[in-house]
């Protein structure tokens, strides 16, 4: 976190002057439905000059420009998918915070379910192997009676 912010601060300092703030009232669209779509979309897009912040959260100038840009596309009648395609065409896949399910990310998306599956198989195999518990000799009748007597006090 320290590094990321140090980096963000260094950038802000490099650009000079106070940066604008995330999602400003002036940017907002009058139509609440379009604006809600714009907010949802801006949470999926990365602020390219920050580390790991969406343009919705970022106060960098570039994030502001992108927020305005995607609202312009929405007003022009683009679907959400078209807006994202438009931005990706200009800035590359990097701009998407959520990586799409594509050959380059098969490994990313498929590994977690594989891990769970592997863990499950491991547990099942282990349970099967261990079923006849060798370390647990059955109690004799006498022992059982004594155990009942001892446990009896506790109800």
């Amino acid at each position, binding site marked *: 976190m320290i590094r990321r912010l140090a980096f963000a601060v260094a950038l*802000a300092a490099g650009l000079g002057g*106070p940066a604008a703030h995330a999602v400003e009232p002036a940017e907002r669209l009058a139509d609440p439905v379009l604006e809600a779509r714009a907010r949802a979309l801006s949470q999926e897009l990365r602020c390219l000059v920050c580390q790991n912040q969406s343009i919705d959260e970022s106060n960098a100038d570039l994030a502001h420009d992108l927020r305005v840009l995607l609202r312009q596309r929405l007003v022009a009648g683009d679907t959400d998918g078209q807006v994202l395609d438009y931005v990706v065409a200009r800035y590359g896949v990097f701009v998407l*915070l959520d*990586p799409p399910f594509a050959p380059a990310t098969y*490994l990313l998306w498929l590994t977690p379910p594989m891990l769970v599956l592997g863990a499950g198989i491991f547990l099942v195999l282990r349970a099967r192997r261990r079923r006849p518990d060798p370390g647990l000799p059955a109690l004799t009748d006498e022992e059982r009676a004594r155990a009942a007597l001892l446990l009896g006090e506790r109800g």
Partner: protein
Amino acid sequence: MLVEIGHFALVLALLVALVQGTVPLVGASVRSRPLMDLGRSAALLQFGLVALAFAVFMHAHIVSDFSVRNVFENSNTAKPMLYKVTGVWGSHEGSMMLWVLMLTLFGGLVAALGRSLPASLRARTLAIQGLLGFGTLAFIIGTSNPFDRLFPIPVDGRDLNPLLQDPGLAFHPPFLYFGYVGFSITYSFAIAALIEGRVGAAWARWVRPWALTAWCGLTIGIAMGSWWAYYVLGWGGWWYWDPVENASFMPWLLGTALLHSAAVVEKRETLQRWTVLLAILTFGMSLIGTFLVRSGVLTSVHSFAVDPTRGVFILVLIALVIGGGLVLYALRAPGLETGNPFAPVSREGALVLNNLLLCAGMATVFLGTFYPLFAEVWSGVKLSVGSQFFDATFVPILAPGIIALVIGPVLAWRRGSLRAALRRLAPAIVGALLTPVIVFAFDRAAPPAALAGIALAAWAMLGVLTDLADRSGVAMQPIGIAWRRLRHLPRGTWGYAIAHFGVGVLIAGVTVSTAWRSERIETLHPGDTVEIAGRTLRLVGVTEGDVANYHAQRAQIVVERPGSAPMTLYPERRWYPVARSQTTNTAIATNGLGDLYLALGDPDGHGGWVLRAYYNPLVPWIWFGAILAALGGLVSLSDRRLRLRLPAVRTSLAVRSAGSADN
């Protein structure tokens, strides 16, 4: 002069570390008591020397000695004294100094408290700790010398990054490093056990308190970092799945697994090999975390390539520590004793499940953190892995763990009955199913994920309460007896109960604050009002002024709510002229059940100001929960069965409690 003494002490510490890392190892293999005992004196001496160097470094910061490059780059005469002190670990060099101070502190503690340890195990543990110290000190002296001088001596310094001039962040690194580095001692114990070829209950009794200590520090450190992000970044987020956050979260996940599996080794003498492996990997993750943060590899592969000295040094250190540890493990683990058998449904079984899920969760976080790096190196594709990936994978993996977290402690060791456990937990089951239904009745638009989260939170909290009620026998006994039984439960049991309850509290906080937060972002002129969550906010005005090393713009906002007295909040923006940067200082009013969160934005140039107002319900519970978890760890640590200096008593207690099913 003083600075040279500090530098000299650091170099001397390096030499002592070399002696500590070699002589006791030889001593242990030729069975020479004096050579083995050298490890203790060396560990104490090494700690003393590093502490001296650290004190000198801190002194240079306090008196603003700008002839030291690090002080010039990170301090300023106008900086408040608190941040002159805490600014010591605000820079790369300083944080490495803090790291090595913690490392030698842990070595010194084992030397001082470990009188009752078998001599050879102690000698080998201290030797490994010495080698780790040698590596770190070589890194500091070779690539990150904190005592580097500057000439000509500048008149004033460049000031510390203003974001770090904050009480939350001032004390975040010491806790975090205490945790990170604390796992070095469990690593050293693990390697020593592999060399010895034995992992017994006595070994686990030594490892568990150290793992617990480190874990508590790491938990508090992460919670503080998250809290800081929450109030500093100005829009109320508290976790970003940022690589730097993940860097501390990965060792935490493995450390949590280690904590639980060490308990199994101690109570049941099983899972020994797995625990040793976890101890190696946990510290390995701490090192990888350091590498992530310190090498600059995160910003981009290219910034790493520009100045790879530090990064390559840490990489070699990681390769030696993890690689060496794993090779030794592969060679020696097959010779370790095999554990006592247990049925799949048993407390051991539940702990194995917990370990598997925590490790799978860790692997997912690891994958998400490093995938962009791998993808760029292999295919040249630059892509991002954001919070949606982690939310979609990590959360479902850990959710079953929350279910097991309640059932596990109710199961008997060795062979348990799931039906009996569920019958005992019946009240918690009813509560966990009912709570989301009640919530849904109030809010028909509640998202299903939020309802599931609420069910899990209720399950964890009610499950612990049910178990405690059951252990006290409150249903069958007079209340006085039940109370006495409750009071006399072992501290370890209380520790588990508090920590697991804390997990429930945390889940409630995360779920409710994510699903039901409200937001208003408006431009206000003095006198304008805005409504949020039943409250009316009125901007009185914005005042400006110079304070210490910054220029402040401070808004006065009156909050009115029907039925309660109005209160005034002061969200602020600060401009640090020396560091040339702007920070947001949010104003937060909390009542324990929710936060009203205000951040001041830009002026619009016509007398208006952007105000960002949020209402975050239950958000404080996130940190309450984390603090409860750490508190549970501390309570557990105070259990007399874990107390460090009672070897004779401990053995007899261990014999006595071997058959009982308590915690």
